[in-house]
């Protein structure tokens, strides 16, 4: 019985880790700009597909491929901000969110034409037997996914709390005018946030592709689940997104295991709704903070 339970749990962790990373991606742009970047899912796809392109198609060494993939995702994030968000004369929040939707559709189209519609995969980061825990197995790549998620969370924590750039980005989100007045280049911070969230998404994509395969249109599903994770934990709170992500992943898996697999998406969403009903700001954001927000 324990074995079965553990297996469900591991399955939930695998899936949840990705939701968490996508959720964090949402938070980064949200924290710096109050924009929900709905193209977040596409960056995960870019991560997986570009990694395949560099490592399998061009046969570059592993670390070089990782570096190139990160650079590519960063550049796409940068272009996205410079070409669509920055030129806006009248930056209206709703308009900007619609623009991110448009960008996601555009990116999906470009990915479809350059990679086709079939799924892609490359070997796990480390080859070897799955790890056995009390009879339940955990694939090595799953450990990588969870480890990388953890690494991203810790680095982002230090980035936002300890570095000037990170603090400046937070300042822009709280009050762009005041941030401008104290000498922060708001426009540059907004650009950074898009680059950073693109990179985080791509890192997630690189890590999960060996487990789940990657195809051009996986983005929307990931974006929805990641968005749920961010909402559940409270938009803007990275800790919340991580816990929300794992919670949704585990809930789905447990529902599939103990109730029925046909109901897993439904039950996870119902619990999300219940949480929002009792805690409208999400698990880790207080009501006062919610009132301070524009969106």
């Amino acid at each position, binding site marked *: 019985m324990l074995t079965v339970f553990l297996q469900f749990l591991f399955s939930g962790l695998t899936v949840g880790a990705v939701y968490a990373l996508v959720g964090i991606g949402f938070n980064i742009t949200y924290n710096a700009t109050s924009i929900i970047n709905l193209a977040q899912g596409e960056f995960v796809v870019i991560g997986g597909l570009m990694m395949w392109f560099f490592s399998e198609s061009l046969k570059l060494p592993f670390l070089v491929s990782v570096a190139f993939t990160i650079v590519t995702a960063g550049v796409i994030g940068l272009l996205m901000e410079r070409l669509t968000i920055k030129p806006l004369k009248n930056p209206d929040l709703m308009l900007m969110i619609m623009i991110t939707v448009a960008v996601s559709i555009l990116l999906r189209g470009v990915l*479809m034409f350059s990679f086709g519609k079939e799924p892609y995969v490359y070997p796990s980061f480390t080859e070897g037997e799955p790890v056995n825990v009390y009879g339940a197995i955990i694939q090595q790549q799953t450990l990588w996914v969870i480890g990388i998620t953890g690494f991203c969370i810790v680095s982002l924590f230090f980035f936002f709390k300890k570095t000037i750039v990170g603090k400046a980005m937070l300042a822009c989100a709280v009050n762009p005018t005041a941030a401008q007045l104290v000498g922060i280049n708001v426009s540059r911070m907004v650009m950074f946030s898009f680059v950073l969230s693109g990179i985080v998404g791509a890192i997630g994509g690189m890590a999960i592709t060996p487990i789940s395969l990657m195809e051009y249109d996986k983005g929307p599903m990931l974006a929805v689940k990641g968005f749920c994770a961010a909402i559940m934990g409270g938009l803007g709170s990275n800790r919340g997104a991580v816990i929300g992500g794992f919670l949704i992943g585990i809930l789905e898996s447990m529902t599939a295991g103990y109730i029925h697999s*046909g109901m897993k998406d439904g039950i996870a969403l119902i619990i999300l709704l219940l949480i929002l009903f009792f805690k409208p700001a999400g698990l880790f954001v207080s009501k006062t903070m919610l009132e301070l927000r524009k969106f």
Partner: protein
Amino acid sequence: MKKAMRRLAVVLVVALSVSLLFVNAYAKDPYKIGALFAVTGAASFLGEPEKNTALMLQEQINKAGGINGHPLEIIIEDTKSDETQAVLSAKKLLENDKVIAIIGPSTTGESMALVPIMNSASAPLLSCAAGAPITQPVKDRTWVFKTPQYDVSAVEAIYGYMKKHGITKVGIITISTGFGDAGKKALLDMAPKYGMTIVAEEKYGPKDSDMTTQLTKIKAAGAQAVINWSVGPGQVVVTKNWHALKMGIPLYQSHGWGSKKNIELAGKAAEGVIAPLGRLVVWEKLPDKHPQKALLKKYTQDYEARYKSEPGTFGGHAYDSIMMLVEAMKKVGPDKKKIKDYIETNIRNWPGTGGIFTMSPNDHCGLDKDAFEMVVVKNGDWEILK
């Protein structure tokens, strides 16, 4: 002056007759047929090879002189894997383009949506989707045919093979799409006939990334074999999970498994996976005298030469639909009713890519479980099981 006039006249006559020559080559009206494929959207992995096949056949047929001198014109519409779009496009094809018949659509859901439209337009539809309800009951589906094998036939092929190998308790896992639901229904319906007990019945979404939970449940329920029913990346993920879990029971896939790409993606996890496959994917392993071999070889090689990828079972469905329709038009011309009657009564022992078709007024698919070979993955290649 007179000389100049005469010269001009000669030039004109020559020019006219030359142009007439060209016109003459296309003097006969083209036969216009419509094709609805899910070129984009969730089912695009079906629509893509189907579209490619249609374009290739159109070119081949026209190069060989068309259909009794009439060029074949295939008007391809993208349904975006969406029922509503399929209906709109079908109406456009029938009303604006005045097509004689329609090939496709790619999915069962879209095909079902077209049944009433084809009936009221009295035009033949040759669907490339597998679901049994597309052509059954025939009395309400007078104008609808389909070329993919029945799901039930694939299930019967699997159950028959399992029975021979002493498997009676199976766990099934299906994708939550039309394909998976139809498969699930067939698996449940046919189980009693072959003495099978379904001990677990699981589902997953088309974009899910991990199915270990469902497989663990199946194992815990005491199944002697797992049957996965899906198309797309899901079947690879299930295969990888099955391998990682070391379940110790065989994994059977549906007839949707028939693409080398799946073996490539699943890598060594695919070893030992068994599936009922149409002969298209294993044509190299067929004996030379097999009636399907020659056409399978030509189709596969032509397709691969042109598109640098394998046509897969799905491209084959489009091939069968188009060739069947072309043969009917060759014999009876562009008359919708006559085409329908011809397909119903004259397609007998007709080798296609999906099997050897024998249509009848009561069977608008014409294939049974003999259209499948049980195939196992061995050393990264297919091997036909006896």
